[in-house]
């Protein structure tokens, strides 16, 4: 019966995404995005990925929302008056085409959660069989991040560093060139 709960959560996700799309108030959109991320975290926990669920709840529902609220506070809360409320044919066609291509790709995949799907194959999985002996960590996701794919994690930290430098540089440059701009 757990799939009923799962289905209800997934339907709620779609409703929330549509609401965030429709709302003219950006603050409302940001808060709905936070709720959406939190529900997504519950689904991740349901799908046996507690690490992702924790990170999504902290980063997706927490820090991202704070960033959006900060940006909205420094700009304006409502959208400007535009005519993008009604359905636009051009973007809709593009989106439907891409959706059809993705649906065709998914249709060729094995069913969700089936034990013989390549993504879920456990026998012969090196990480699960040797991870604990090699690294001494009980949580295999941690072992992969910090040991097997540690260069990946280094790259991730480099990205954080570069973005921090870029944001500092953007705001410093703005203050220096203040007289030219105004």
């Amino acid at each position: 019966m757990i799939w009923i709960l799962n289905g209800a959560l997934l339907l709620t996700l779609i409703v929330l995404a549509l609401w965030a799309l429709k709302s003219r108030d950006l603050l409302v959109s940001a808060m709905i995005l936070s709720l959406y991320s939190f529900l997504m975290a519950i689904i991740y926990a349901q799908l046996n990925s507690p690490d992702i669920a924790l990170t999504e709840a902290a980063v997706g529902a927490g820090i991202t929302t704070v960033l959006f609220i900060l940006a909205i506070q420094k700009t304006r809360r409502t959208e400007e008056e535009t005519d993008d409320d009604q359905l636009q044919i051009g973007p809709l066609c593009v989106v439907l085409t891409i959706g059809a291509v993705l649906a065709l790709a998914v249709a060729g995949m094995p069913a969700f959660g089936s034990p013989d799907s390549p993504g879920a194959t456990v026998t012969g999985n090196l990480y699960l069989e040797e991870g604990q002996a090699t690294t001494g960590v009980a949580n295999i996701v941690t072992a992969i991040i910090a040991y097997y794919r540690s260069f990946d994690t280094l790259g991730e930290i480099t990205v954080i560093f570069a973005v921090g430098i870029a944001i500092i540089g953007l705001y410093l440059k703005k203050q220096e060139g203040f007289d030219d701009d105004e």
Partner: protein
Amino acid sequence: MNIIDPGFILGHYNYWVAIILIMIGLYTMIAKRNLIKKFIGLNIIETAIFLFYISLGDVTGGIAPIFAEGSTNPPDAVILYANPLPSAMMLTAIVVTLCMTALALSFAVLIYRRYKTLDARRLMELL
């Protein structure tokens, strides 16, 4: 494989939801003119992609890839574990998404300070 088969449709429901969310996010990015609204659409696309990957790694009746205390190695063949690799890759992706959102929003704030608008069409006229 019959496309109309209800078992086929229900068996992929996580994937269908991920595709619908990607479509909603993409529509938000293309059709909406407010920059912050576009970034909200970008976030929706990314969480949908995470959902897709996590669904790939899950296995029915499996448990999270964390060994119980005292469990020996190799793990019991009886216990099914979810694949840990998608989780590990998506952990990296979540942080990169956060960085991208932060950079995009700081650009939006700077654009608003200079041009007093976040409407993409008006910005194209001003530039």
